[in-house]
């Protein structure tokens, strides 16, 4: 009896040691590609095609993707492709003229003939309609981006999985934003 117990104990100890070793090996192997930094999700604004999935596929409702405005690139146009519907009756703040479905863009007169466009983040749903307009007709200063204080930082971004242009990637938390202006990763073509 004592002998069997001893043998069982010996086997147990042996297996435990080998399990410990394999756990160590796995961690050591993973350590090769480890970084002390954390990772967050970001959209590459130059890859984004404004397909509209950011508004529908984020685990957050409304989406953690919002339109951000790189003011430095803005032309401050009166006739803004991001603000006004194509073929808008008038160039003013009338609801029937606005492209944004939630009226999340604020248009503010600065001086003749320039206007500032400001995104009201709480209203923005990240549909990218204004981005499409601004990119097609303007400077592309409006673009979509994942806002970190809203984003849950899921292990796998639900939008990245369905993004048709694979524009969403993980970036280091120390360089947490790819905002146009600072981030000038111009497309190859």
């Amino acid at each position, binding site marked *: 009896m004592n002998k069997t117990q001893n043998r069982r104990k010996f086997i*147990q100890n042996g*297996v*435990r040691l080998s*399990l*410990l070793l394999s*756990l160590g090996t796995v*961690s050591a*192997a*993973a*350590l090769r*590609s*480890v*970084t*002390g*930094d*954390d*990772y*967050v999700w970001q959209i590459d604004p130059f890859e984004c*095609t404004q397909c509209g999935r950011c508004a529908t596929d984020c*685990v957050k*409702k409304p989406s953690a993707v919002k339109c*951000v*405005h*790189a*003011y*430095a690139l*803005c*032309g*401050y*146009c009166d006739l803004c492709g991001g603000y006004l519907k*194509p*073929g808008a009756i008038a160039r003013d703040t009338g609801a029937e003229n606005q492209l944004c479905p939630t009226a999340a863009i604020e248009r503010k007169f600065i*001086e003749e*003939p*320039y206007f*500032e466009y400001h995104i009201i*983040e709480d209203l923005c749903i990240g549909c990218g309609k204004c981005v499409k307009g601004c990119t*097609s*007709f303007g*400077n592309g200063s409006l673009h979509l*981006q994942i*806002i*970190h*204080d809203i*984003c*849950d*930082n*899921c*292990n*796998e971004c639900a939008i990245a999985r*369905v993004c*048709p*242009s694979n524009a969403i990637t993980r970036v280091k*938390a*120390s360089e*947490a*934003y790819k*905002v146009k*202006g600072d981030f000038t990763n111009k497309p190859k*073509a």
Partner: protein
Amino acid sequence: MNRFHKNTKQLFFKFLSANWRKVKWGFEIRRSFLILSFLIFNFSLASGQQQRFPKPEFSTGYEQPSTIVPEPRALALEYFDVAVLLVVLSLISWLLLKKRSRQGVLWISLFTLAYFGFYREGCICSIGAIQNVTLSFADPNYAISVTTLLFFVVPLAFTLFVGRTFCAGACPLGAIQDVVIIKPISLPKWLNKTLGLIPYLYLSLAVLFAATGTDFIICRYDPFVGIFRMDAKFHMVVLGIAFLLMGMFVARPYCRFLCPYSVLLSWMSRFSKWHMTITPSKCIQCKLCANSCPFDAIDFPTNEKEVIKSGLGPKRFLTYALIIPLWVALGVFVGAKSHTFLSKANPNVYLAELLISNPEIKNDKDNIDVQTFLSSGKTLEILVKEAEVIREKFYIGSMMAGGFMGLVIGMTLLNTVVFRKRQDYEPHRGNCLSCARCMNYCPVEQ
């Protein structure tokens, strides 16, 4: 100049908006975009600017606001999470092994539910970390953060010494199921064993999908994350609530019959050094604990007469041992056969297959994936080549997963005919979740 600028722009805009209304996506916009950029190019040559509409120089002293970019969660807080995990694990181990306190474990698990569950919204999670570790092996470009690696390793290391204390109260998914146990029923042994195979399958699929860079299925089909976030897709909320309702009677169904991390924990726990025991000293065979475990994880003393009567002996053991290679071969075969089907989960493979099998889809303006691919300038040959590489990975991966499943089934069968002599009521080290309920039933004084 300004006047001119405005008029020309208006002209473009009208011209383009006429076009825009006709189309939804893709080419037409691109084409008009080309025309526009050509015109703009000429235009901007004159003005000598990079942008289509250069930023104006304001005369009223307007100051340009800065783009608001809120910082992500501080890195220090991520390390704080690891510290919380360490403290929680140590506390539970102490409460379990030294204090033998079910109440203490319960309080800790409630804290876990509040902190890792509702506050951290179930995301940072040891179960999901399996996939990050896998991907860091499979993809040399994928970097894993220290915190994620620690969340993967620390519970396993603890389990190797003290049993599954992680399950007892450091896992928010376990904690939320633990609090809804009302009237647990005991499942028949064969059902327990059969359902117990699902975690192995889930683990192999999760590793396969993560290694091929296809998907993180553990995170995607986490039934409780929607409850933690109070927000999820409808079917996931239904799944989460269904699991909780089921969990009232079949205790902790996710932990026992799905959780892929439980496979690794169970391996570790089987050989743990100081696993909890039901009795503090010597079992007096009072049988009070026999029905106390909601998870059917208490092994009863072996009835030797019955073992002999059932005729299960070395002969059957030998047979089961010898057919293990057959199980493995069958698994490999099934894996090889199913790799085409499994690889369709990969978006690249799916798209390539769609474009080949159904070329007319190119004209479908509503298919965003196809239209984006077509306008990206990538040729079909490159896409197909990429898809073939991924499918090759799936071929090898699913054969390995199949072989692993075959081995697991073979070993499970083999285990059914192995009898260890037991005089006392003991927790099954692999399945015991260290919740400490049984300890309350034991009348033996410490």
